[in-house]
């Protein structure tokens, strides 16, 4: 039981980071139906920007998070403008291949500039343990979970309570109808990229702290897992990405704890296959029916 609780805690804190990345996937998919495969690399760049900022200035967690989020938000908007906007009316496969191209570009550029070897991420959070019986929770885990929950609450607020959030939802349900309301669709798409990329940037910093090591290819596997999390929850659905991310984290932790950590990735991929076969729309997804 203790083992189970321990893994559950590990899984939730890891999963909450997947959830942050998954949110970007799902929001972008919701609004332009693009699987933005460069999203994992934005998360990687978030980690690098946080690394550079924190080592150069010696500042703490909050300023590092903010700088990294702002950088990634701008980067997301620029990538959308340069790479995806010209393809707005192209086939979806064209945009998808472009996204893969952007992903390679970001990885290779980072390798060129920062080198290929791992960097040690500064410890921005106090090291320490809370013991609850035989279960231990690290301060880092507590902080990571707190930060991700705060960010998700902020996101939920933006999406449900603000005008631009309503515009985002309107554009993702019906782009032309949104246009007829006078919504600037391009601006709304840019904003969505900014929001999703900022969350990925935050996730990058948090992962840097959690594993205390970053590499230019660190975005690959978490990127794919976050994508699976988004599909698991129902792609395009924001609460789905949160639930999907946390579930994937828990499953991974349980597999590592009870089976072998060698199998944890395989299990996650098997889950993707099962979802695609059994419930392609995801946990919270609905089969779309037209009302006449």
């Amino acid at each position, binding site marked *: 039981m203790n083992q189970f609780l321990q893994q559950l805690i590990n899984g939730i804190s890891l999963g909450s980071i997947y959830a942050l990345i998954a949110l970007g996937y799902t929001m972008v998919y919701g609004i332009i139906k693009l699987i933005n495969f460069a999203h994992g690399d934005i998360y990687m760049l978030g980690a690098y920007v946080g690394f550079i900022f924190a080592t150069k200035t010696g500042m703490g967690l909050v300023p590092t998070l903010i700088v990294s989020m702002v950088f990634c938000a701008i980067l997301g908007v620029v990538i959308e403008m340069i790479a995806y906007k010209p393809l707005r009316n192209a086939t979806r496969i064209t945009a998808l291949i472009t996204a893969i191209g952007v992903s390679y570009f970001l990885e290779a550029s980072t390798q060129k500039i920062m080198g290929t070897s791992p960097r040690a991420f500064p410890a921005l959070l106090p090291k320490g343990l809370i013991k609850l019986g035989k279960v231990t929770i690290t301060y880092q885990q507590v902080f990571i979970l707190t930060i991700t929950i705060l960010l998700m609450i902020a996101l939920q607020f933006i999406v449900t309570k603000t005008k631009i959030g309503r515009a985002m939802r309107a554009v993702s349900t*019906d782009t032309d109808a949104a246009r007829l309301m006078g*919504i600037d669709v391009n601006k709304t798409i840019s904003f969505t990229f900014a929001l999703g990329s900022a969350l990925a940037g935050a996730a990058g910093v948090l992962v840097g702290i959690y594993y205390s090591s970053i590499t230019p290819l660190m975005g690959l596997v978490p990127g794919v897992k976050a994508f699976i999390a988004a599909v698991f929850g129902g792609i395009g659905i924001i609460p789905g990405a949160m639930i999907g991310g946390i579930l994937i984290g828990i499953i991974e932790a349980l597999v590592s704890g009870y089976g072998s950590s060698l199998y944890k990735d395989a299990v996650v991929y098997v889950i993707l296959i099962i979802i695609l076969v059994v419930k392609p729309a995801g946990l919270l997804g609905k089969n779309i029916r037209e*009302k006449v």
Partner: protein
Amino acid sequence: MLKIRDLNVHYGVINALKGVSIDVNQGEIVSLIGANGAGKTTLLHCISGIIKSTSGTIEFENNDITKKNAKDIVAAGITQVPEGRRIFKGMSVEENLLMGAYLRKDKEGIKKDLESVFERFPRLKERLKQNAETLSGGEQQMLAMGRALMANPKILLLDEPSMGLSPLLVKEIFKIIIDINKQGTTILLVEQNAKMALGIANRAYVLETGKIVLSGTGEELSNSDEIKKAYLGG
């Protein structure tokens, strides 16, 4: 008020509108009737800036709006109730209505218009927090119209408001259209239900495969033999 001259629209090689010219004057109800695929929706989308014309001009209150984007056209005072209602599913009735007022900044005015929408469509007030998807077809049509009215338009473009509704509801919707017009909003109505559309129109146009083939007052067209044969079933 709205002046369209020699408008052409192409979808690839298909010429969807072939030199369409129509006028809508301030305060009028103008109906545009025609069969499926005649180009009615294309024309409305072109006015709203969703589709770009290949040639021709659209003037609104003496300003050329042919090349303007959808946002500026809504801001100028042209709002469309699209075919099939196109309400935002997953959003509440209230949020849908607020989307209509997206470009407006006058909080007081928005509040006032929201009240008048509720007065016109009391059902929407009852269902304010409900997911718009769960409304019946008639209620969705009312929501789509209410949403458009929230933009406080000078001219309302209505695309097949009677589609898929029971005859009783169609009557109600048309009564509402007349009422909206009486309160000062000019109406351009696109319909397949020719009888109803001609019945309330000051003037009307008949669109056939992308061309205006007939025009006149609603009464003239209702009595025309050609129209009777082709659109009124006798």
